[in-house]
């Protein structure tokens, strides 16, 4: 028995010993950390009693976490959060060689709901298999299967090969590509050959365990606390989507996040030319309208979602490409605007290759942009790049570099470790334009315009630079809750008043989730992540911003001249710590704050 709306059951797998357990999740953990990102972080904390472990060692745990909404047809709430200790991040001065942050990365699709149909609130994998394996789950039956024949297979081919092997199209799965197998630190995890838990190196951790994939299929659903109230809320939210969010729905269906490509460029908030500019003059060539006209054939949705923001089609031109998804805002900016690439088929090719290898496009786009800038400045030459003339806008060069990164060949072996590592190798002041926080590259939203929001957002995110983090404690706590319910950001604003997330959670659990308790849980989860990082050696000096933002002015567009004021940033950061009740010198949460949040077990 567990709290209603949950099974209270974690599928606990050790790949070293082959042991498969179904362990009880303490009720208190469910009450305090909800699910998804929150419960995942708590379980990770328990699995890793000591700081400083090597994230790629068998000791590290990787958790695949749906939330209490997963599997219920609550619109736009089908995400899966992958939680692990990051192979991407590092502190400026940790006493641990492998000191790194928590990593959480979530993906849409159908995988999380299916974990719940199989009767689990999450899957935890530790250890390392002696040969490539995949995990097959049909309700209570769990099997570790040989994946040797799939090792080396791209995600696109594997997506079909796995279904063929399983002989049943109703399995949902997630998997890594060759990048994850090759232990590329910025490797991603994909499902449906397109939807990615891209950030924070989750695919690399999966690869370090010799784990190619998890496939799951189930028949169950948990009992709810207040079934009738839940049905009432579902009816209301369906009506509200239809009546109040009709225009928004149309917007999402038309272009998904790619709609933001042109809008953000106009607003000076786009990452352009390795973040030197906020506006890209040629953005129309790769924007949503161009894709509607030339590439996209169909719109696809995640489980029980009405937005259909995933776009598929065929790109033709310099390359002929099967498009599973994209560009969306992040991939279109990082492989497009940030590299000054406006050849649409070329952009689609880069995205398709990156997804097929399974590499984080946000980080990979940063690396290529960084090297383009270093090349332009004459810090490196084509000899260093093994013959690649890495000029701005060069699709072919970018493609060659990307493939070398995924295969860890030559310069690619260096580049795949990220911009922080590259800058340390190349030196010559290149760290000034290495765009990362804590070793994790920034996403497609540029900082100087709306710098108050974006600088706090990137500097204080617990997985290293993260655009989904939010620029104030309140926003961050809400984002944390959304990720813990496994709800999607895109429709999260539509859940308010009578149909708020906390009302749904109350009906699902039968517990009285007041708005206050709910908000407090968000603070609790965010603070637990912070304590995980603090324990690993991350302090205020790590909550920084790339140097470029303090010295580079936009030279182009309506927001020409924009720059971040360092003093202003430091002042805002101090203010942020005060709001959080954290020490303004060290960033350590006070014992009072930890006690108040029921996090006394983290007090050091």
């Amino acid at each position, binding site marked *: 028995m567990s709290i209603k709306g949950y099974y209270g059951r974690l599928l606990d797998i050790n790949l070293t010993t082959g042991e498969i357990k179904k362990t009880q999740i303490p009720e208190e953990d469910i009450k305090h950390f909800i699910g998804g990102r929150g419960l995942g972080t708590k379980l990770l904390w328990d699995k890793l009693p000591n700081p400083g472990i090597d994230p790629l060692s068998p000791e590290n745990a990787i958790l695949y976490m749906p939330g209490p909404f997963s599997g*219920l*047809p609550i*619109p736009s709430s089908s995400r899966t959060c992958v939680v692990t200790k990051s192979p991407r991040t590092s502190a400026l001065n940790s006493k641990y060689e492998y000191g790194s942050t928590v990593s959480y990365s979530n993906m849409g699709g*159908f995988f999380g709901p299916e974990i719940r*149909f199989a009767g689990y609130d999450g899957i935890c994998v530790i250890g390392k298999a002696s040969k490539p394996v995949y995990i097959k789950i049909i309700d209570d039956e769990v099997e570790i299967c040989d994946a040797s024949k799939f090792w080396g297979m791209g995600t*696109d081919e594997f*997506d*079909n090969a796995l279904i063929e092997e399983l002989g049943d*199209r*109703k399995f949902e799965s997630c998997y890594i590509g060759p990048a994850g197998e090759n232990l590329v630190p910025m490797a991603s995890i994909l499902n*449906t*050959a397109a939807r990615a838990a891209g950030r924070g190196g989750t695919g690399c951790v999966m690869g370090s365990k010799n784990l190619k994939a998890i496939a799951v299929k*189930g*028949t*169950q*659903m948990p009992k*709810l606390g207040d*079934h*009738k109230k*839940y*049905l009432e809320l579902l009816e209301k939210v*369906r009506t509200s*989507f239809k009546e109040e969010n009709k225009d928004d729905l149309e917007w999402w269906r038309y272009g998904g996040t790619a709609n933001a490509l042109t809008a953000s460029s106009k607003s000076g908030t786009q990452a352009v030319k390795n973040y030197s500019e906020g506006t890209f003059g040629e953005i129309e060539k790769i924007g949503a309208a161009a894709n509607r006209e030339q590439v996209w*054939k*169909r*719109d*696809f*949705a*995640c*489980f*029980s*979602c*009405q937005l*259909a923001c995933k776009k*598929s*089609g*065929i790109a033709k031109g310099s390359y002929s490409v*099967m498009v*599973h998804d994209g560009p969306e805002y992040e991939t279109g900016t990082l492989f497009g605007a940030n590299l000054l690439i406006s050849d649409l088929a070329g952009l689609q090719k880069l995205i398709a290759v990156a997804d097929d290898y399974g590499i984080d496009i946000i980080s990979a786009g940063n690396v290529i942009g960084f090297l383009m800038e270093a090349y332009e400045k004459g810090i490196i030459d084509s000899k260093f790049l093994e013959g690649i003339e890495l000029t701005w806008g060069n699709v072919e060069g970018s493609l060659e570099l990307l493939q070398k990164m995924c295969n860890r060949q030559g310069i690619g072996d260096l580049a795949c470790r990220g911009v922080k590592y590259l800058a340390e190798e190349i030196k010559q002041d290149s760290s000034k334009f290495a765009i990362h926080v804590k070793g994790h590259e920034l996403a497609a939203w540029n900082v100087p315009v709306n710098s108050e929001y974006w600088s706090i957002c990137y500097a204080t995110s617990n997985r290293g630079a993260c655009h989904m983090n939010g620029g104030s404690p309140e926003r961050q706590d809400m984002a944390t809750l959304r990720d813990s319910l496994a709800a999607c950001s895109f429709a999260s604003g539509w859940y308010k008043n009578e149909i708020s997330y906390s009302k749904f959670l109350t009906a699902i659990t039968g517990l009285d989730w007041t708005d206050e308790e709910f908000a407090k849980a968000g603070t609790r989860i965010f603070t637990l992540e912070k304590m995980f990082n603090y324990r690993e050696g991350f302090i205020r000096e790590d909550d920084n911003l790339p140097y470029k933002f303090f010295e580079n002015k936009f030279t182009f567009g309506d927001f020409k001249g924009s720059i971040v004021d360092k003093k202003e940033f430091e002042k805002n950061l101090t203010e942020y710590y005060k709001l959080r009740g954290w020490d303004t010198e060290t960033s350590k949460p006070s014992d009072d704050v930890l006690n108040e949040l029921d996090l006394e077990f983290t007090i050091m």
Partner: protein
Amino acid sequence: MENNSNYSRRHFLKDLALGGGGLVILGTLGFKILKSADGKTIKAITVDFKKCAGCRTCETACSAFNHREKISGEEVFGLGNPHLSNIKVYHFNPDVDVPSTCAICPDPPCIHACVISPDLITGRKALYRDPETQTIKNDIKRCIGCKQCAKACSNLRGGIIHPNPETNKPERMCTLCNGDPQCVKHCPYGALEYIEIAADRDLNNLSPNKIAKKLMEQWYNFNA
């Protein structure tokens, strides 16, 4: 996506318009073309694959209506467990989603294949057409679980009928939800319709695999 001009309307109708799991209609081409010569029609659930986004809301709506739960003595909709749904959405790569549901065939091979002798009074086999709703029903008391109906559906139509894993008795025949199919009602994309179609047509339903293959070719010029 425009129809390839080489793809004749005749082929279009033959290969695609009549698809597995209910009648398949693409775009606005539709039931007018499909009306039979004598104008006789039946009502059925149709799928517009161009509109379907594969969200599986139909599965949850079907399941919630057809698998109710008793909550403090009152019978209410279930939670919509997709496993219990009669309609199923199948994903394919390259990206095609195929909702697949019982077509309530006018010439049902499932009933034809039923090995139970017709009842002397009602004329019904174990599997029969309910004269009131026109849906296909199974009399579980007479059914022996021989799976012939499932085989026939799989070989000749969309492969909708699945034997229950324990009893082997057929499941997933569409109930039409008392005349208000919930899958149609709740489809966020308007991909499902419950409309009049020709009654005398040979609904040569295709399996989801075959439909997907056709659509991949059409949409992405892709040959599996």
